[in-house]
């Protein structure tokens, strides 16, 4: 993390998939030769508990960083945010925001219903999250990291200039400087200590409207509110492995289960027509998502020796004639199906 260097973190895939390991290793090997890059490798981001060295390491990074993980960028970014590793989300052409057809390229982007946003102060740095599932070869990632390196350098210059313009009055510290907490030892061995698999929801606060439907729905005490009455995933490890039910209940698609098999729940980029898929399950004979969510919840309740509650508890009663809020990318996405350019 020396001055002027960009921190790059590779978060390994869980398991031992040789193709994934090969991509990680090839990328790591070429990044080690790359000037201006500080590379570290940690286990699967999602599995890192609060005490894992990999997590402490991430927390210790003060500046811009690139995180390459086997996760959707949106999932990785909000996962880091929940862990207190925060910043501005960097944009990368590797995961285009919206893969629209050219015909409506002139239209201004639709107004998005704003989520409540992250809580507290966001440090002035940028975090780029790249999805290692997007490409099989490492070269494209290497080139993108070089591009980000150049962008980060410009951002740094901008910040420096801003700082100089508004130079704070000099503060003279008297007495002994305060003792800094000693940084833990970040050796490759401790960084890569294998964590056990975890399972919990991640809230995308750029979409969350604090409607509390997840809090009402989940009967396992996963959700809570902070001092400002904002929803948060309070008890991650109370969550039931494999159960994504609250994500189905969320009216804003703000709840992500990063390792879930279906892309929409795992945090696929909203607005990316190529990435986010319309769920046709209902049309093809599947149940209503609320029913599925209630079934999934019942299964976990019974497993815990509790009574199933079906649709009786915490199922939102949405008003069908609710006035429509401002349109967002997801709305336009489903509209795109309307025109069915087949």
């Amino acid at each position: 993390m020396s001055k002027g260097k960009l921190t790059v973190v590779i978060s390994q895939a869980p398991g031992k998939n040789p193709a994934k390991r090969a991509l990680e290793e090839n990328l790591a090997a070429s990044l080690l030769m790359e000037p201006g890059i500080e590379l570290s490798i940690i286990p699967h981001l999602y599995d890192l508990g609060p005490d894992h060295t990999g997590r402490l390491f991430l927390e210790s990074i003060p500046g811009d960083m690139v995180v390459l993980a086997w996760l959707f960028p949106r999932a990785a970014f909000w996962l880091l945010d929940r862990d207190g590793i925060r910043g501005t989300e960097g944009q990368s052409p590797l995961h285009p925001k919206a893969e629209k057809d050219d015909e409506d390229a002139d239209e201004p982007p639709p107004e998005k219903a704003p989520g409540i946003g992250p809580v507290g102060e966001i440090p002035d740095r940028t975090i780029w999250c790249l999805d290692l599932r997007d490409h099989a070869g490492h070269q494209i990632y290497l080139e993108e990291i070089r591009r980000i390196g150049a962008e980060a350098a410009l951002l740094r210059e901008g910040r420096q200039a801003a700082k100089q313009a508004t130079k704070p009055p000099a503060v003279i510290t008297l007495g002994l400087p305060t003792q800094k907490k000693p940084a833990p030892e970040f050796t490759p061995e401790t960084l890569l200590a294998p964590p056990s698999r975890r399972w919990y929801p991640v809230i995308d606060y750029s979409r969350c409207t604090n409607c509390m439907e997840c809090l009402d729905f989940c009967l396992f005490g996963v959700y809570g509110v902070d001092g400002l009455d904002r929803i948060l995933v309070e008890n991650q490890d109370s969550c039931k492995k494999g159960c994504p039910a609250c994500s189905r209940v969320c009216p804003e698609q703000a709840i992500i289960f990063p390792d879930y098999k279906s892309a929409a729940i795992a945090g696929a980029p909203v607005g990316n027509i190529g990435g986010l898929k319309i769920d046709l399950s209902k049309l093809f004979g599947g149940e209503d998502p609320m029913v599925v969510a209630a079934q999934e919840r019942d299964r976990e309740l019974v497993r815990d020796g509790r009574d199933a509650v079906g649709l009786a508890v915490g199922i939102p009663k949405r008003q069908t004639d609710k006035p429509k809020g401002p349109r967002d990318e997801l709305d336009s996405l489903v509209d795109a199906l309307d025109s069915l350019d087949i």
Partner: protein
Amino acid sequence: MQEDLWFTMGKIPARLPAGILYAKNHMWARPETGLNGNGLFRHGFTHYAILLMKDVYFLEWNISEGDPVSQSQEIGHIETSKAESGLYCPAAGTLVRFNAALLNDPSAINTDGYGAGWLFDLDAPETGYMNAEQYLKFLSDNWEKTQAMLKGKMNQIEDDES
């Protein structure tokens, strides 16, 4: 040879061959004769379903050949360029076989949906399937609701059992 029927989705026509049967989950069913007799049907996606999904990328079954199945049971999963969905059994019976050719390359679903792109053979004593005219009416009657559903207004839609 009976004439094909057509259902127009917006501007795009979906072909519904006459002489085969249709299930409400947008699968066609063609009686297979000569094997173990009366209730064996070959199933596949209707052109209507394929137009909604577009190019099939990935198809996966989560039951085995020979398994008993109930109606609406989730039996697999599909991912396409526009959509993803669970796949559900249109009638109760025994899943006799899957089209193995699709597992390596599902593109036949798009190129020959009523032929080489068939999905599975199901031995189902009672089906309640529709003929082409009935399916066409079913599609027309539900088109408005389907469009609403595609727009994400799922919670406003009641299941149509008519």
